[in-house]
């Protein structure tokens, strides 16, 4: 117990030291992500992933691998290709557009791109962010509560409140840790934990063959790629897990990372390699942690009451206590790095997007900062309430929040980047439909996934698609709504022209030089280098 606490404290001190070092020795311009400033591509790519994967990766996903076995790997496939699709379809174009329009948040970009002067897109965007980010943060608190409960034998509710207090202090300190380099350290730490964990587990069990034998004797469907299902049910099973892929286009805390990178061409190389390879490693690690964790559980080496607590439970059972403390601290840190960026996105949606941009209220900077703090505290209380009242399954809560953001922002972001004919009317109708339908379907009819228990016709549809998240189907419906409304309305001519000139491609050698190339050319000119 003391060892675990010591490990946590040492880890947090290391992070703090890095924060202080980064504050002192890095150029001030590169420090914070706030306001779309430049950051280097390595930091942006890793920080993009550190904000994306959090409590879900360390608790939610291993819990699914524990419960479903090999079939849960479909979720890793969905997340991996979702990450790649973000780089291919969203990253460079969004960065070019937001550079041109000086946009620093997703509602900023949408309003500028669709030339919306009604402020409706901004209001809808802020509403979507507020509702679903609060749910998302409650998932992080639930994950933190479970990790702390496993470490210190307290109840999950006490753990949730403790996590929320720590995150709130951290955000109110002004994102003191939230420098790029701590995010990079977190990303490295997540890789280390998820690589070491399965290896330690295999070591304790006596090899991979032993693990699959233990699993085969207790639950053969754990070794089937489709969870033991055949025919249509197998396809529904795979889609149910892989559906995460469509959510990547609409996550504001992820896509704003692409907007802050210094050069859109670097997202192509090395951006996609850094993110892609990191994602492959952590998803394999998280999957095998849960999968082999199940074998350990069946072999009686590790005892867990809740599948989602398998990684902290394995750390405590298999590692010296100070190292287990490091793992618990790493989980908490991953949660903090995600929750703080989500709270900041939500508080800027209220303070900046609604008050300042919609109502034109000019407040002094000090009052604005305090208002942001009030919003953070209010959202924290709401998220704690949701976490304590909710079903306490991290995977499900994340799917609920992910779905709202996926349907609200995904279709309009994707279409506005690739189709010049999207109109503001379509954006307003699409976002309003996405928000309203997703709230009703998730809160009143189905929950996060289709099931046969829903009333009337919804139950019949639910029976066909059991286990598929609501957002997967709704994403395509919203896409259709936006296309139809766009075709019925007419976009301003100049914006269509603008779209075509902005995204034109030129032969590589004719492109303008990057700042580094400019400096090199100048140095050559004055004879500094040959």
């Amino acid at each position, binding site marked *: 117990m003391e060892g675990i606490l010591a490990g946590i404290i040492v880890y947090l001190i290391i992070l703090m030291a890095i924060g202080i070092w980064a504050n002192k020795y890095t150029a001030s311009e590169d420090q914070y992500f706030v306001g779309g400033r430049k950051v280097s591509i390595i930091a942006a790519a890793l920080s993009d992933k550190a904000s994306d994967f959090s409590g879900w990766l360390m608790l939610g996903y291993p819990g699914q691998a524990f419960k479903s076995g*090999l079939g849960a*790997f*479909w979720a890793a*496939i969905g997340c*991996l*290709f979702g990450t*790649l699709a973000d*780089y*291919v379809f969203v990253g*460079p*174009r969004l*960065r*070019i557009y937001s*550079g*041109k329009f000086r946009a620093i948040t997703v509602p900023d970009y949408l309003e500028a791109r669709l030339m919306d002067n009604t402020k409706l897109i901004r209001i809808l965007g802020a509403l979507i962010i507020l509702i679903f980010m609060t749910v998302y943060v409650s998932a992080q608190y639930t994950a933190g509560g479970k990790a702390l409960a496993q470490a210190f034998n307290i109840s999950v509710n006490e753990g949730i409140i403790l996590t929320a207090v720590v995150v709130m202090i951290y955000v109110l300190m002004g994102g003191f840790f939230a420098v790029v380099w701590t995010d990079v350290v977190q990303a490295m730490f997540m890789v280390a934990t998820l690589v070491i964990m399965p290896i330690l587990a295999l070591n304790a069990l006596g090899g*991979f*063959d032993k693990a*699959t034998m233990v699993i085969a004797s207790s639950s053969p469907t754990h*070794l*089937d*790629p489709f969870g033991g299902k055949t025919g249509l049910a197998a396809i529904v099973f795979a889609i149910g897990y892989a559906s995460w892929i469509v959510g990547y286009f609409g996550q504001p805390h992820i896509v704003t990372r692409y907007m802050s990178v*210094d*050069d*859109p*061409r670097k997202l*192509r*190389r*090395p951006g*996609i*390699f850094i993110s*892609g*390879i990191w994602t*492959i490693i952590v998803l*394999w690690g998280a999957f095998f942690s849960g999968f082999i964790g199940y074998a350990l559980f069946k072999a009686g080496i590790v005892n867990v009451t809740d599948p989602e607590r398998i990684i902290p439970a394995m750390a405590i059972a298999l590692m010296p206590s100070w190292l287990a403390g490091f793992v618990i601290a790493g989980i908490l840190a991953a949660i903090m790095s995600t929750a703080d960026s989500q709270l900041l996105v939500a508080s800027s949606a209220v303070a900046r997007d609604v008050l300042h941009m919609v109502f034109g209220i000019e407040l002094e900077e000090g009052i604005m900062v305090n208002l942001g703090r009030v919003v953070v505290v209010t959202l924290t209380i709401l998220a704690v309430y949701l976490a304590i009242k909710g079903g306490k399954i991290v995977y499900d809560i994340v799917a609920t929040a992910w779905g709202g953001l996926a349907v609200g922002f995904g279709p309009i972001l994707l279409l506005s980047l690739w189709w010049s004919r999207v109109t503001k009317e379509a954006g307003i109708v699409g976002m309003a439909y996405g928000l309203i339908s997703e709230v009703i379907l998730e809160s009143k009819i189905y929950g996060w996934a289709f099931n046969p228990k829903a009333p009337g016709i919804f139950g019949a549809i639910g029976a066909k698609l059991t286990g598929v998240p609501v957002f997967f189907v709704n994403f395509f419906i919203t896409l259709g709504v936006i296309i139809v409304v766009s075709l019925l309305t007419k976009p301003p001519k100049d914006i269509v022209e603008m779209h075509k000139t902005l*995204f*034109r*491609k*030129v*032969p*590589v050698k004719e*492109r*303008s030089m*990057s*700042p580094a190339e400019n400096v090199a050319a100048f140095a050559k000119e004055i004879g500094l280098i040959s």
Partner: protein
Amino acid sequence: MFSAEGWALLLVPTFLAILVMLIYGFWDKITGMEYYVDEDVL
């Protein structure tokens, strides 16, 4: 050990993902074209 299908589920998508990374990462080399980016955007 996993069955052949099990290994295929793990390895095929991973290789495909690496292939996507390579193709997209070097798309400008393959086609010789790249997005036009000027100082205004940068």
